[in-house]
């Protein structure tokens, strides 16, 4: 209470706060000077964020310095960078990287879906096997696993199809079947499946159980419940995590360079091993990784938007729609209309 009345002299017992001497009663001060002024719409003066502006200026200077360094420092060797950015060997390597990512993602998520459904099934045996799968493949470092697959022929010279523990009907040499590329795809996909299974399971669990109950009460067949009711709603929480996984798989493909597969990172290593221009070639790889991740992020935005239907009363406009609205207001020479509010 005493703190509320700082004007009262020290030592006086706390009482109702009194106005400091000399201060005019607030009511008089707030009264309009001129009778014609419209009090319902007073002029608004925006708050002045001096601190924010100062920090902003400092950051701008740092960014400018960094950019200046990028352009003027000859050690970046930009002419080497541009010579290799679109070179055939690099483009082929980008293609291999994309293939590894695509196969890893497709096979990984397909297998992950099976593992997730097993884990959620009522059979304790299936659930246990699924749990063990995730446990095993999350525990083994990807690089170790890849080397195992690469050396499969050392472990098993032949693989065959036949009666379990009985005679083999058809067999083939492991050497011919599992080349470096397929060993890489198998390794990436099995690794990815463990993570995908957990992401999918998390998505399914996030759906309101009432939704399944309603679907069951309506007699909708089981598979249809999953595909039509659960999966579309689970997608909302699956997608951000899945996109993370795809991006990290995409960059994780650089690990298969240990198996001498001509993907992006291996290829730039080969080139700078030959010409010694390490930094510009690492920049080539960096820029490709950034560009492709950006494309993936854009795809992610629109896919997420698709699965958000029904979640918002009015969906927010896409960046493209916002840009168009902005251009329209410019060309129509009307005062700038406020952009639709982001929800």
């Amino acid at each position: 209470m005493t703190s509320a009345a700082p004007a009262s002299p020290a030592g006086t017992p706390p009482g109702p706060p009194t106005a400091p001497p000399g201060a005019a009663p607030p009511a008089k001060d707030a009264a309009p000077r001129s009778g014609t002024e419209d009090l319902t719409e007073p002029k608004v003066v925006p708050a002045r964020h001096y601190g924010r502006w100062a920090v902003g200026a400092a950051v701008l200077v740092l960014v400018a310095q960094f950019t200046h360094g990028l352009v003027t420092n000859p050690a970046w060797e930009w002419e080497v960078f541009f010579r290799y950015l679109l070179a055939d060997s690099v483009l082929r390597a980008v293609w291999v990287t994309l293939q590894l990512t695509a196969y890893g993602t497709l096979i990984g998520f397909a297998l992950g879906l099976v593992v997730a459904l097993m884990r959620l099934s009522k059979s304790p045996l299936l659930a246990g096997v699924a749990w063990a799968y995730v446990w095993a493949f999350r525990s083994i470092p990807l690089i170790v696993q890849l080397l195992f697959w690469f050396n499969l022929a050392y472990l098993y010279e032949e693989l065959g199809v036949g009666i379990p523990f009985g005679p083999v009907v058809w067999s083939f040499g492991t050497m011919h079947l599992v080349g470096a590329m397929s060993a890489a795809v198998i390794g990436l996909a099995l690794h990815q499946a463990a993570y995908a299974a957990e992401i999918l399971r998390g998505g399914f669990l996030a759906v309101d159980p009432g939704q399944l109950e309603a679907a069951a009460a309506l007699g909708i067949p089981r598979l249809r419940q999953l595909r039509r009711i659960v999966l579309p709603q689970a997608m909302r929480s699956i997608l951000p995590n899945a996109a993370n996984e795809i991006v990290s798989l995409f960059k994780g493909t650089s690990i298969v360079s240990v198996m001498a597969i001509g993907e992006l990172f291996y290829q730039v290593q080969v080139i700078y091993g030959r010409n010694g221009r390490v930094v510009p070639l690492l920049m080539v790889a960096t820029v490709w990784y950034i560009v492709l991740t950006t494309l993936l992020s854009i795809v992610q935005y629109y896919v997420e938007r698709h699965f958000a239907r029904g979640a918002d009363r009015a969906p927010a406009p896409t960046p493209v729609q916002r840009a168009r609205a902005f251009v329209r207001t410019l060309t129509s020479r009307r005062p700038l209309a406020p952009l639709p509010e982001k929800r």
Partner: protein
Amino acid sequence: MSTAPVIVDVRGIHKSFGAHPVLRGIDLQVRAGEVTVVIGPSGSGKSTLLRAINHLEKPNRGSVSIDGELIGYRRRGDKLYELKEREILRRRTRIGFVFQNFHLFPHLTVVENIVEAPISALRRPSGEARERAHALLARVGLSDKADAYPRQLSGGQQQRVAIARALALDPQVLLFDEPTSALDPELVGEVLDVIKDVARAGTTMIVVTHEIGFAREVADTVVFMDDGVVVEQGPPGDVLDHPRHERTKAFLSKVL
């Protein structure tokens, strides 16, 4: 009493959750075209009874049959064989269920919500199912909301869509689990009006509710449940105005 055939036949249902008994031997018969309203205090087992009727809860003992066909089991000789989920789902299409919290599918439009089960469970052609959905929407007064998403509707409108969705299967019996308990007071009336309208059209229904006025107006039979048993049942004039049991009297004095 009516001489219409018994549609819903519940015999000796017991159900426990863990060590806690929720239903302790329920018998209930509902004849075709009748409206049965189940009332009782919270935790008396009303909702569990309703959920046991369409096998959302598997009873520990006892049986439920709809129009002479057991729900969840097949009888051969003196043995009951548990049905697989596929067959349970098929039999459930004869029982409409309206939830307290609507449980509409939020990612589907109103019409898609209604046609989903007729198309996937009853294999009706899509055009026919849509036509019927629009007719049902007109009946619940929501013709203009066919292409809206559930979140764009008020609670009362959502519940009316849920009723249309249940009716789209042409069920032999319609179960309502506290259909107005999640609604703002001013929205209760519109939902009760729709339920009354469906009742007058001769649909057999069992309604769990706290709306005593609705029970008095619409019910052929009022069932009072407490502590997992049916304490008394009869015409609303008897049970609601001249209850014979102390527990019924005590409950009614609190809610009336």
